[in-house]
Each structure stands twice: as structure tokens, then as C-alpha cells.
């Protein structure tokens, strides 16, 4: 078995079916891989941006704070210029400023010459103590009259904070009269101006243009160097850059369980997809094998000549194959679901089917098979051989009965042909033997008869001859001839007697014969021929029928002859009429006798045949010898009975004879 190419497009369709989910899964996997990366990137950018924004905001804050400080310093300077501040007041103002602005470490008023006039400190700053850079600046702002920031070099000793000065010129009437110097601790700026939450997340540094650290705050730990930002503080004449460095490291590729789960799930998805693919492949292979099997089986069932039929447990037909439908000529649709009586049951043996059906329901099945007759839709009959077996499902439970039905018409025909051929052969053999016998007998009788005729004719001739009859010599001749004729007649008589003794030797041997058994044997013998013509033989031996005293062989021959005649008389009748009855019952009129009858529903005995019916060599059959009925009558008569026949009221003929019952014969 092979399947046509129509499977190829199916395969490609299958590929298409699989392509979409596989592509989806691949896409999903790619996304699952790409997404964390992308998320990392985004997070990184976002953090960077956040850092920038925060840094800018911090810078703004610092600038804002410094601006406010500048304002305070400016107002202080203005008040100094106005000159209405006492030294104490000035001192307290300076202290107040330092208190409120912890980033400031020192405020000093110096005059134009660089002498310290007032300071928050007890010890005023000596002018020579002013650093070189500060003095340069002071000299510059004397001419520019613009405030400036001065950034000190970072101290060598890290314990001292890096400092930055704010110089504000004090002018009176456009004349420089001194400066206010506010000294910032850069560390303090970071300490007090940067909000704590920012410091917590970032390391904050102030560096000069040589990247020297001026101030540092790392409350949340050292920066990782991943997210960094630098921004100039834009202080006039000071070159200070604010550097922030986030304490957060780079975002991890698989930052959380979710991603792990997603990847695991997608792997699981792939695995299950592969498993599904494998399973579907296996399933399809199985399906294809199954389909092939089904197609193979269907083809087998369709091409089968044996009919198949399945009954369920209720006796309903659940399956028939085409061969069965062809056999009975009824389409499957009309058969499936049918309960008995079935449309293919021949009405005359309905009872047989029903009995068999009941047996089947009762669970008794003849595994040897049995023969019966089915009816086609066109009412013709045909013999079938049926084998039955229980139908058992995979759980070992019986679900019905399976029957295989063979149409044995041909076999029957062949058997019948064989049998009739055999019979013809036997008949012709019998003919030859009988012919031989008759020939011998005829010869044996012919010789003496011919001689007798010759002698007597010769004698008569002499007696009629007037010339010859006179002499004594002639009389002697005539006597001689008559004596010879006499001897020949005796010889003929002897022949007849010897034939008689020969037949006498075959005097029937008598014994009690059980009619039921004998008739059953005969029915079995005749069945073969009967089935050929769909004739039903019914044997009916009345209960209590006694045994008869007879030669069983000869009585059997009589019954067989009568049965065969009956079968042959019915072969052209309508099928419903083809019923042959063999009956036996005690004779109600003659006690001690048993009546035996063979009844057919055939064509009857034509009027012109009745006279010679029992004559030897008379037959209505073309190949008949004409000895059957003659022998029957002889045998019946030798048993002390009479063979008679009457017309069957329903058509056909009844042959009847009676025999002595065995018990009555003994008494």
C-alpha cells in the first residue's frame, strides 16, 4: 500500500502551520534576550540623565546659596560703607552670618591697604599673612570694583579643608575703601548645600581645573565611576567644577527574577513546542498508518467475496460488507439497524432462522458452520454456508456476533452435477447389468422356445400334409418331435425356476426397525438433492409410533425411492410449495400396523401414467429406468403391505403404505 502524492502539499501545509509558531517563538526569544539588554541600556541612560538633572539641580542650589551669601555680604559691605555700624555690631553681624551659613569659615573686613579692620575671629588677619594670590586679587578689584572669588590651592595636608574666598569691594563715592572677604570651606559647601538624599546616592566632589580635589562628600560610599557628570560652578574668577559620581554600579543584564522566569519560560516553551512537534509527527505517522490500515481493510472488505455481517447483542445488524449486500441484493442502509425477521429470510423456513437466532442469543454457536438458504431481493433463493463467532472487544467483553457467509450455489450445483452424474453412471451401470441379465435370460429362454416352436410347427406341418400323415413312420417322427419339444419346454421351465430360486435367496431379512432413526437417515441422504432445489424436508414421526418389522435396507430403499421421486416432482414448483413431508404414525384403523407416507406438493401423476405406474420399465422421467416404483411395490408387498397413492389435496401426491408393528408381529 502507498499513498498518492496528495500527501506532499499536506506536508508543506504542515510546515506552514509550524512556521508561524516557530517564528513567534523565535521572535519571543529574541525579544526576551533583547529586552533586558534594552532595559539595561534605558536604565543606564535614565540614570545618567537623572544624575545630570540632579547634578544641575545641585549646582543651581549651590549657586543659589552662594548668590544669597553674596547678597548678605553685599549688604554687609554697604552697611560698612555707610559707616553706621559699630564694631560690635559688625562683629555680631559677622558671627550671625557664620552661624546661619555654616559653609563660611571666616568673614574679614580689610581696608584698602590690606589691613584687617574687623573679623569674626578674635585674632585679625595680618596683611602680610594674606596669601600672595589674595593680594593680587585685592589689587585687581581695587581697580575693577567687581566682586571676585578666589580659589586657594588645595592644602597639602588633607586634614585642612580647601578654602575659597569671596572678595567684595567696599566703595564710598566710587572710591575703593576696602573689601569684605568671606572664606568658604569647599568641604562645607558640599556638606551644607548638597541635599542629603543626593549625597547618599552620589559621591560629590569639587575639583579645580587640574582635577585636584578641593572638596569631597561620599556619604553613600565611593562612586563607581559608571554614572558621572561634571559641571562648572561658574563662579567669577574661580575655576571650580562640580563632579558627581553615582554610587550605583552599571545595571545588571538580568536584573531580576522576572527576566529569569521569562527566559526559563521561553525555553520551556521551546521545549514544549519541540515536544509538541515530535508528538504531532508521531501522531501523524500513526494516523497515516491507521488511514492506510483502514483503507487496506476497506479495500479488502470490498473486494471480499465472502459476505460479512455483524449482529449486536440485541440481534440488530450493525455491519454488513458490500459482498453481503451484493449477495442478498439489499443495500447496506436498509440492513443496518434491522432486527429479525431479516429481509433475506426465506419465508418457508422462517422457523429455522428464528430457532438459530434464539440459540445465538442464548450463546450457543456452532463453530462448524451451517448451511441454510437466503432469499435475494428478486425472490430467488440461494444456499449459503455460514460461520459464526462471538465478537469480542479489546476489554474481552462480547459486543455481538460476527458471521461470514459464503454463497455455495456453485458448489451445490457442482455437487448436484457430480451426484446426478454419479447417479447416471450407476443407473447406466445398472442398465448394463440388467441388460446383461436380460440378455442371458433371453438367450437361455430363446433356445428352448425356438426349438419348441420348430418341433411343433414341423409336427403341425406334417399333420397338415395329406400325403405324409398316412404312414406309421410319420407318426413316429411326430411323436419324436413332440417328445423333444416337451424336453425343451421343461428346460425352459428349469431356467425360470432357477431364476426364481435366485431371487428367493434374497428373501427380506426382518428385524424391528426404528422409524425415527431410519427416516432421519433417509432425510440426510436426500437432503443433498433437496437443497439443490431448495426443497425443505420435514420428517414427522408421531410420538409413540412403534418399531416396524422389516428389512431395514429394503425399507430404506423404498423410502429413498419415494423421497427422490417426490423431490423430482417438485423441482419446477414455486419455492414456497417445495415442502416434502415424510410421516409415520400408528394406523388408527388397523391396530398393530404403522402407516408411513411420503407427501409431495409437486406436479402430481398425470392421468395417462396411472395405469402403468407400477409396471416395470415405465417411467415419466427421461432418464428413469422405470424400476423404482415397481421395486417399491414388490418390497412393500413382500413385507405384507400395499403401496398406494392418492392425490394430495394441496397438489401433488401422497404415497402411503402400512407395515406390521414389531410388537404385534411377535404376538
Amino acid at each position: 500500500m502507498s499513498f498518492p502524492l496528495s500527501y506532499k502539499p499536506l506536508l508543506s501545509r504542515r510546515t506552514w502551520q509550524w512556521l508561524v509558531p516557530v517564528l513567534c517563538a523565535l521572535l519571543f526569544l529574541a525579544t526576551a534576550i533583547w529586552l533586558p539588554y534594552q532595559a539595561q541600556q534605558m536604565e543606564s541612560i535614565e540614570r545618567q540623565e537623572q544624575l545630570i538633572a540632579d547634578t544641575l539641580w545641585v549646582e543651581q542650589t549651590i549657586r543659589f546659596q552662594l548668590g544669597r551669601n553674596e547678597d548678605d555680604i553685599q549688604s554687609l559691605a554697604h552697611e560698612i560703607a555707610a559707616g553706621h555700624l559699630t564694631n560690635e555690631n559688625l562683629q555680631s553681624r559677622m558671627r550671625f552670618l557664620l552661624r546661619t551659613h555654616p559653609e563660611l569659615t571666616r568673614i574679614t573686613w580689610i581696608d584698602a591697604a590690606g589691613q584687617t579692620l574687623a573679623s569674626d575671629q578674635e585674632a585679625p588677619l595680618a596683611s602680610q599673612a594674606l596669601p600672595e594670590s589674595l593680594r593680587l586679587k585685592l589689587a585687581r578689584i581695587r581697580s575693577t570694583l567687581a566682586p571676585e572669588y578666589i580659589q586657594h590651592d588645595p592644602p597639602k595636608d588633607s586634614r585642612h579643608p580647601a578654602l575659597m574666598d569671596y572678595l567684595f569691594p567696599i566703595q564710598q563715592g566710587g572710591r575703593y575703601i576696602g573689601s569684605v572677604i568671606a572664606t568658604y570651606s569647599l568641604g562645607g559647601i558640599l556638606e551644607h548645600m548638597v541635599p542629603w538624599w543626593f549625597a547618599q546616592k552620589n559621591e560629590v566632589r569639587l575639583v579645580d581645573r587640574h582635577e585636584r580635589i578641593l572638596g569631597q562628600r561620599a556619604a553613600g560610599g565611593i562612586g563607581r565611576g559608571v554614572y558621572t557628570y561634571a559641571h562648572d560652578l561658574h563662579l567669577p574668577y574661580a575655576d571650580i567644577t562640580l563632579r558627581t559620581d553615582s554610587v550605583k554600579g552599571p545595571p545588571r543584564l538580568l536584573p531580576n527574577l522576572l527576566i529569569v522566569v521569562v527566559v526559563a519560560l521561553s525555553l520551556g516553551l521551546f521545549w514544549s513546542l519541540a515536544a509538541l512537534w515530535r508528538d504531532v509527527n508521531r501522531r501523524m505517522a500513526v494516523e497515516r498508518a491507521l488511514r492506510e490500515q483502514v483503507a487496506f481493510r476497506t479495500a479488502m472488505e470490498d473486494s471480499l467475496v465472502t459476505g460479512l455481517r455483524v449482529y449486536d447483542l440485541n440481534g440488530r445488524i450493525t455491519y454488513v460488507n458490500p459482498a453481503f449486500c451484493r449477495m442478498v441484493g439489499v443495500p447496506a442502509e436498509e440492513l443496518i439497524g434491522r432486527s429479525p425477521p431479516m429481509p433475506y429470510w426465506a419465508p418457508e423456513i422462517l422457523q429455522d432462522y428464528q430457532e438459530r437466532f434464539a440459540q445465538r442469543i442464548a450463546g450457543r454457536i456452532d463453530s462448524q458452520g451451517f448451511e441454510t438458504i437466503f432469499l435475494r431481493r428478486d425472490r430467488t433463493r440461494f444456499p449459503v454456508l455460514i460461520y459464526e463467532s462471538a465478537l469480542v472487544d479489546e476489554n474481552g467483553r462480547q459486543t455481538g456476533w460476527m458471521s461470514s457467509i459464503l454463497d455455495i450455489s456453485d458448489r451445490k450445483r457442482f455437487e448436484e452435477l457430480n451426484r446426478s452424474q454419479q447417479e447416471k453412471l450407476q443407473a447406466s451401470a445398472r442398465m448394463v447389468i440388467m441388460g446383461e441379465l436380460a440378455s442371458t435370460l433371453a438367450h437361455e429362454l430363446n433356445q428352448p422356445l425356438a426349438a419348441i416352436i420348430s418341433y411343433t410347427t414341423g409336427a403341425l406341418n406334417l399333420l397338415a400334409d395329406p400325403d405324409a400323415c398316412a404312414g406309421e413312420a410319420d407318426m413316429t417322427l411326430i411323436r419324436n418331435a413332440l417328445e423333444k419339444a416337451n424336453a425343451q419346454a421343461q428346460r425352459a421351465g428349469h431356467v425360470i425356476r432357477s431364476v426364481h430360486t435366485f431371487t428367493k435367496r434374497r428373501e427380506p431379512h426382518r428385524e424391528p426397525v426404528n422409524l425415527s432413526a431410519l427416516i432421519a437417515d433417509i432425510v440426510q441422504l436426500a437432503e443433498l438433492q433437496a437443497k439443490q432445489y431448495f426443497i425443505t424436508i420435514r420428517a414427522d414421526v408421531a410420538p409413540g409410533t412403534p418399531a416396524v418389522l422389516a428389512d431395514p435396507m429394503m425399507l430404506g430403499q423404498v423410502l429413498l425411492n419415494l423421497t427422490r421421486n417426490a423431490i423430482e416432482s417438485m423441482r419446477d414448483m414455486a419455492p414456497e410449495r417445495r415442502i416434502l413431508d415424510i410421516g409415520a404414525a400408528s394406523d388408527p384403523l388397523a391396530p398393530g400396523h404403522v402407516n408411513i407416507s411420503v407427501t409431495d406438493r409437486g406436479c402430481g401423476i398425470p392421468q395417462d401414467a396411472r395405469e402403468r405406474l407400477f409396471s416395470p420399465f415405465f417411467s415419466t422421467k427421461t432418464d428413469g429406468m422405470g424400476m423404482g416404483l415397481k421395486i417399491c411395490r414388490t418390497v412393500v408387498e413382500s413385507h405384507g403391505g400395499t403401496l398406494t397413492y392418492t392425490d394430495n389435496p394441496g397438489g401433488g401426491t401422497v404415497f402411503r403404505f402400512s407395515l406390521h408393528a414389531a410388537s404385534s408381529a411377535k404376538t
Partner: protein
Amino acid sequence: MLHIVDDEEVIRDSLTWLAQSRRIQASSYAGVQPFLDMLDAGYTFSPEGDCLLLDMRMPDMSGALLFDTLAARGLTQRMPVIFLTGHGDVPMAVDSLKRGAFDFFEKPFNDNKLMDRVQEALQASLQAGEQAQVQARLDSLSAREREVMDLILEGRMNKVIADMMGITMRTVEVHRAHLFAKMGVRTAVELARLLK
């Protein structure tokens, strides 16, 4: 003479008796061989004619075979054969009839009818004998005599014959005298009757 060939003694005896009751001379033979022996011993045909009653079925040689032998010797005219058949030999007998047998009778037969046929056969045998004699005489004629005889039978006078044959009348008369003597007749009328 009636020749009876049958293996059954009773049949031979009864048929001989029957023939004698009809005044027919009869001799019987127990089989084919004794009969052939008798023929070969130089049998001369009987003046009353001959007839053979032949049983179809005999142990030594079948009647049909004997018939064939006789036919081969050209004797079936001088000795007509009547077959006696038993049962079932009828087709064989009919076949013989076609080949020249005189008749056949099925046993048991009507004896007088048989004897009637026997007598007819004897007559036929006699006639066949005569015809054989005439033929022998005709064969003894010379060609010239035969020529003359044919013209005489045409009813021509001696003179006419002499003219037709281109011979003298005297020679015709000599031929005529010779052929009359040979044919055993004295007149042309007798000659014509003999040859009719």
C-alpha cells in the same frame, strides 16, 4: 439343400425336422469350420438350389465373418444366406443385409415364415445357378460369333448380317450354327428367351 450352421444342437435338430416337414432337404453343421470344410471338399451345388441358415453368434467364428468369407468367394448368389439372430444382434444383421444377405430372422421366429423364405432363397439360388450357366456359355463364344449373335438378337436376317459384316452368307450360317450349339438353343427365339 438347406445348410444349417448353429452351435446349438437343439436348434439344428429342430430346424432340420422343420425343413424336412416341408420336404426340404437339410444338412446341419455344428459350427463355421465344419461347413467351410464341407465346401472345400468340393461341394457341387444342389439341383434344388442351396440356402444357408446362419446363426449370428457362435463360439468359434461369428456368422457375419462366415458371410464375409462367402461374399469374398462370390458364393452369396448361389447360396443365399439367411441370418438367425438372438437378442441385440439386429444391427449387425441389418448391416449384413445391406451387404447382400438374403434375410434375417429374430429368435424366436415364426417357423413357417422362415421356411417360406428358405424356399424363396432356394429358388433364387437356382436362378443364380442358371444365370451363371448362361454367362459361362456366353463366355465360350468367339468374338465373331458374339457379333453375329448380337445382330440376330436385333432380329436381322442372315443376308443382312452378311452384308453388314462384309462376309458371305455361308459364313454367317456357320457362325450361327456354332453359337446356337454353344448356347444350347435351337432357334433364335430360344436364344432370346435365354438372354432376356
